[in-house]
């Protein structure tokens, strides 16, 4: 009993050592990286594949990357896009997602990009929960 309690305490101490926000930040910057840092390779790979595919498909559909904050809808779109972390900044630097939306599928592309950012934030928070021991 005492040994079990001691083992749990040691495990909790090991889990809480170091910078606990690293998986959160890494997961935000690079999809799946947060899970890789906590040793969840399979989950990280699936999350990375899903989020990267969604972002790439959004751009392939000529989706728009939000860049300005002229009105509330653009601000919300920008907040969603920023969830993609480095992907967003790389795409902006490469001049992608800047064209005018003229076809329906491009509007879908814009939603794909925003939602991939929001899903990436959920994944990064999940990695943080794994790191802190809140989730197994």
């Amino acid at each position, binding site marked *: 009993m005492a040994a079990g309690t001691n083992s749990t305490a040691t495990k909790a101490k090991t889990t809480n050592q170091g910078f606990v926000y690293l998986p959160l930040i890494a997961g935000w910057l690079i999809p799946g990286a947060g899970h890789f840092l906590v040793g969840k390779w399979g989950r990280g790979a699936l999350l990375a594949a899903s989020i990267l595919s969604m972002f790439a498909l959004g751009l392939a*559909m000529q989706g728009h990357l939000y860049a300005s904050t002229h009105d509330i809808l653009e601000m919300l779109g920008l907040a969603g896009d920023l969830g993609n972390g480095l992907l967003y900044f790389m795409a902006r630097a490469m001049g992608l997602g800047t064209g005018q939306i003229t076809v329906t599928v491009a509007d879908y592309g814009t*939603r794909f990009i925003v939602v991939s950012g929001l899903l990436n934030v959920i994944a990064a928070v*999940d990695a943080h929960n794994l790191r802190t021991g809140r989730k197994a």
Partner: protein
Amino acid sequence: MYSPSHFTALSLFALFASVVFGITQRETPKRMLKYGIYCFALFELSAVVLSWAMYLIAK
């Protein structure tokens, strides 16, 4: 330019969102898979139901 049909776009969206929901909202692999399939089915089913509703309203 990639130009999928509306249903293909919806299915791709449902697939990727369901994978993330499944992994992040459940703890064990079996429950993750079940929840992912459940979310995917709900996405698809609600799209079909809403499509028919809009078709009948517009008729």
